[in-house]
């Protein structure tokens, strides 16, 4: 199939950037979205042009690197799917596709479609961990965990930190990401000692990074490639409010 792409090109953080139109022919429906861009990049390189910079790593939907706003939807039209797992069979011959980077002040554009997501790392550094002596793996079942808690914690732990929640949120809020991490650790016995301080530190770091406030629109969970549920945000709010009441 033949497609028209409108891709955000920005040579660096200080460049204004603009959408540039590309025609791409003979796209196979079996290609992934990123492979389609690889083909375009090969042609750009052969023509002596600068290839389109985009983030990618595992290309199997688990690393959280790929990050594209495709026609105004984070990770494109497929639900619960990262951009790398989106295939061109979902498009038709003659389609025009607009590709933009995530848009948020805490995610500055590095180049073209690549944004700097260090803000997420700083939120994790603020409290997304448990302080235990590391060593050899503990015996299985040494610490009992109720099955339902283990399941919910695992659901939250599937967050790959891609930032689609921020990109899709009309408020530019990072609540779903932060809540997923707080839920993941807060549901397990190992996470209990620091549960309150973790929630406070992570929420405060999230606000400090300049993310917007959550108004529970649900746009985040709708585009999340891992389908992180909205109840994680209720849990984050509960932990944060309880911790704030205790320490004033």
């Amino acid at each position, binding site marked *: 199939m033949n497609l028209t792409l409108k891709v955000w090109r920005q040579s660096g953080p200080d460049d204004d950037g603009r959408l540039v139109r590309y025609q791409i022919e003979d796209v196979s429906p079996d290609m992934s979205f990123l492979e389609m861009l690889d083909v375009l990049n090969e042609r750009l390189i052969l023509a002596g042009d600068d290839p389109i910079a985009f983030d990618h790593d595992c290309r199997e939907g688990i690393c959280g690197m790929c990050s594209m706003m495709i026609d105004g939807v984070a990770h494109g039209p497929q639900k619960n799917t990262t951009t790398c797992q989106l295939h061109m069979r979902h498009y038709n011959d003659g389609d025009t596709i607009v590709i*933009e980077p995530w848009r948020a002040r805490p995610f500055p554009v590095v180049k073209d479609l690549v944004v700097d997501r260090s803000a997420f790392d700083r939120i994790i550094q603020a409290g997304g961990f448990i302080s235990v002596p590391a060593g050899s793996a503990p015996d299985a079942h040494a610490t009992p965990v109720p099955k339902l808690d283990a399941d919910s914690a695992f659901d939250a732990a599937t967050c790959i930190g891609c930032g689609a929640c921020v990109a899709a949120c009309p408020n530019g809020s990072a609540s779903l990401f932060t809540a997923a991490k707080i839920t993941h650790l807060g549901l397990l016995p190992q996470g209990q000692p620091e549960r309150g301080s973790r929630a406070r530190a992570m929420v405060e770091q999230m606000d400090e990074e300049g*993310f917007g406030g959550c108004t*529970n629109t649900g746009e985040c969970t709708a585009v999340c490639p891992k389908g992180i549920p909205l109840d994680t945000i209720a849990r984050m*709010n*509960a932990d944060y409010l309880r911790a704030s009441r205790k320490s004033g």
Partner: protein
Amino acid sequence: MAVSGAVLVFFLVAHMAGNLKIFAGAESFNGYAAWLREVGYPLLPHRGLLTLLEAGLVVAIAAHMYSAIVLARRAAHARPVKYAARVKSRANGYATRTMRWGGVIIFFFVIYHLLDMTFGVANPEGHEATPFARMVAGFEPARWYITVFYVISVVMVGLHLRHGLWSALQTLGLARRYPVLTLSAAALSGLLTIGFLVVPLAITFGVVK
């Protein structure tokens, strides 16, 4: 947002219950209005409790608007560069998308509503008439356009509640069992909408005279 909104929801429930007294006749309705001004007398002064409640409402509305403005400003700050493609909403929620501007519309409605029913400036009977007479005159068939305006505004309030009710519980960390929660929010906002709509409609269609 959640706390001030909750105060306003309790007010709306009481307000609706009071309105429905119109179906019990002029005496009952006027009696209720008079009672509101006399609650607790002589322990409290005339209009004592009512003035206190009104002050609480003003504070709640101010806090609600302040929170909304802070959130909107934070949102604008968090996304300095907008998307070129129209951002498609993936979460289904007309009520959610209309919260911000719907709130502004509701604010203007409340101003008109106060001028109409509380101060009587925009009411054909004026301030001196009984509350029942003001109500009936306000929604008389000849003023059908006022009724239409009220119907649209009340539906806006209903939509605002549709999202606001469960969203407040979510913000306070109390949200559980989402299907039940959002369904209850829809049911309660629907109930309030209908409760507020029957009164002006009943007057306009001549059921209450």
